[in-house]
């Protein structure tokens, strides 16, 4: 049985989402929250397998919940469910540890499929997100501080290759064909990319905090 957190402030949408989640995971136990504050309390108390998190909430940003969940329940999956499709909003959530994102207004079937894919370990990756990730890891212009300290969070050539092709608009199955790799392998690369983005961002934040501490 899965424990699923549903963080959404609009009651109608929350109800609709609950129905949708129960359709994908019939045996799941869904815990609802409408505010960041409530969600944070729930995260400390209950162990979740999956969390569907809206970003724009009345008392703050869902990114905080993603971060907390990543800290106290590393094995749980956070998925951002949002109305914002632009990387400006999504990238911070991904850096905080979100494992994929779903756009709310998509047809029910599409969301169902995406949710299934995510829970099977196949997160989506849009061209603009791919570009942001590449820019973040770009060693040429300005490597992230963490990458200098921890070489293992740098992207491999293959991962970069995948990102490059996603940025050009190729779909993941297309890339699999182009590189002669299975759909599963491509999905693994994307998972690695998300993981490294999170690790690197967290390390960078920690280093930044340390640096501030040193100068205080």
């Amino acid at each position, binding site marked *: 049985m899965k424990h699923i957190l549903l963080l959404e402030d609009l009651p*109608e*949408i929350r109800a609709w989402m609950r129905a949708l989640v129960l359709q994908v995971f019939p045996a799941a136990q869904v815990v609802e929250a409408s505010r960041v504050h409530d969600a944070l309390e729930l995260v400390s108390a209950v162990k979740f397998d999956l969390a569907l998190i809206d970003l724009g909430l009345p008392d703050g940003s869902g990114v905080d919940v993603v971060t907390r969940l990543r800290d106290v329940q590393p094995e749980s999956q956070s998925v951002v469910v949002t*109305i914002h499709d632009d990387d400006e909003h999504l990238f911070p959530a991904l850096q905080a540890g979100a494992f994929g994102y779903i756009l709310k207004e*998509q047809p029910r079937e599409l969301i169902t499929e995406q949710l299934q894919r995510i829970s099977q370990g196949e997160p989506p990756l849009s*061209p603009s997100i791919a570009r942001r990730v590449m820019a973040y890891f770009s060693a040429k212009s300005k490597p992230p501080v963490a990458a200098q300290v921890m070489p293992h969070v740098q992207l491999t050539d293959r991962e970069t290759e995948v990102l490059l092709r996603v*940025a050009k*608009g190729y779909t993941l199955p297309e890339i699999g064909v182009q590189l002669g790799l299975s759909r599963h392998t491509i999905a693994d690369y994307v998972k690695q990319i998300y993981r490294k983005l999170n690790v690197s961002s967290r390390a960078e934040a920690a280093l930044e905090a340390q640096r501030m501490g040193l100068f205080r």
Partner: protein
Amino acid sequence: MARRPPHCLHRWVLGLLLWAIAAGTLSAQTLRIDSALVSTGSVERFPDTGLRTVTLPDQWRNGSYPGGESVWYRVGLRPVAPLRHDDLLALYIERVCSSFAVFLNGQRVASGGRMSEPLTHNCNYPQLVVLPTALLREDGNTLDIQVVGYPPAQVASRSRGGGLSALEVGPFELLSQRHTRQLALQVGVPQAVSATLVLMGGFMFVMGWINRRESHLAYFGALSCSWAVVESRLWLRDVPLSGAAIEFLLASMVPFVTLAAVQFLLRYARWRHRWIDIALPAQCALMPVTLVLAGTARLSSATAVWYTLLALQALAAVLFYLRAHWKSRRGAFWPTATLLSVITVGVAVEFLAQRMALPHALTTLAQLATPVLFVIVGLRLVQQHGQALQAAEASRISLEARIREATAEIERNFRQLAELRVEQVTDRERKRIAADLHDDLGAKLLTIVHTSDDQRISTLAREALEEMRLSVRGLTGKPVRLADALGDWRAEVVSRLAQAGIEAEWSAPEDLPQTLSARAYVQTTRILREATSNIIKHSGASRCTLRCAIEEGDFQLVIQDNGGGIPMELDGRLDRGHGMASMKHRAKQLQGQCLVESGPGYGTVIRLTLPLDRAVEP
């Protein structure tokens, strides 16, 4: 004089020329007297007691004559050639020091000024005495010269010690020329040079005084003025002071001259030392004290010691300056070095002339050359000062220009900042509007999307939501790189077509450097989205080709499907229901065009052309 015939002018000029060519002519026509009977006594007439013979010139030595008494010289005179009635006979005395009187056959014929303290100082004045024809006797004449002066021990310089040079008797005109020339050289020129030195020195002193960074100018001014004061003894005859007092004052001036010279050189070499600033004035005060202690009788030896000391100081300063100048390599070294060396030699000659007999011409030359060189140095300093002023002016002008530039820059920056501020405010406002749209309109539309039972309303709401999002993006977005836009479009179109089971073929050039404004990006996205929707919903196509290209600065997108085409309306125009009108309208807004070609069974070709140049502009 009035009786002189008219042709005398010619003779005068001729005589001058002749003299200039050969001095021998002069000596042939004049009588040079180089020995005399001498006696001493402060009486009105030649004392006949204690006579002895001396050779002329007779430079007095210590103890050779009793102090305070007149010295009488007597020579016999017989005219060398019969005198013509219009010729005057004259006596020329090159040097007589300090005051004198001349008697011919017992009659006083000339006086050099006061014969008692304060004595008239004639030492540097050559004397010409007319011997009245009426007093001359054919058979022989007696010429008595009474001289008063100071023994060498009481004067600081030999040139001011008592004495009488050789005498010359000859035609007045001839000797007068010589007298005039010597007078000009020994008195006139020093006067002129002294005046120049005082004027220039005063000017430079004021200049240096005002401009403390150029203190060497002030010291040079002081040097010039004090030198002029010391040199004034050459031509200043009657001073209401005793000889001893004058000697004392003159000697006291010399350490001041040294101070000015040494400080000038050190400051000019950009070097100063506190101890030197103290020691030199102290020396100026100390020297008069020692002279007073030594007394009038030992003035000469006391000054000798002091002058040597001071000369060494000045020499050391010269060497120091030259060394500093050589090291710094500032300006031309050799002209400065030469000038300084010549001045040093000139001063050295004067220094030596005070102690020993040097050729008269040499001392005169040194006396004249030194101040002239001072004037040259002064002019050079003024020139340098002028150049420095000019440079300062130039740098001031350039500084002003730079300040103007900087001010303009600051103003520009300020303007930019203000613009940026406006931009920031606008940006923030746009973001706020965008957030409001998302939160209110977006949430409501979303609710409709997911709660409406009517599929059509749900789809419309979803489309409205997408539209809203695009609008927001057009409102807030930054310019998008064309390559990135192509990636976004490809991902969307290809996955949508794939979901609808339509095979898609996409071709686009790689690495495009152009950018699209957010508006152009949004509008093109809408057109593309509309076209894709049409293909999925209405065309019945199984295959779709999308080709992007850059041609002549235009962005071209050709979308071709193998579907059933768009049915013609009765009026011969393409079906408006398929959103063609809005696609065309959007293209027009971007100064582009959207052409649709379609025929039943041929599929549809949509050609979108957008001018990149204008689309690039925000």
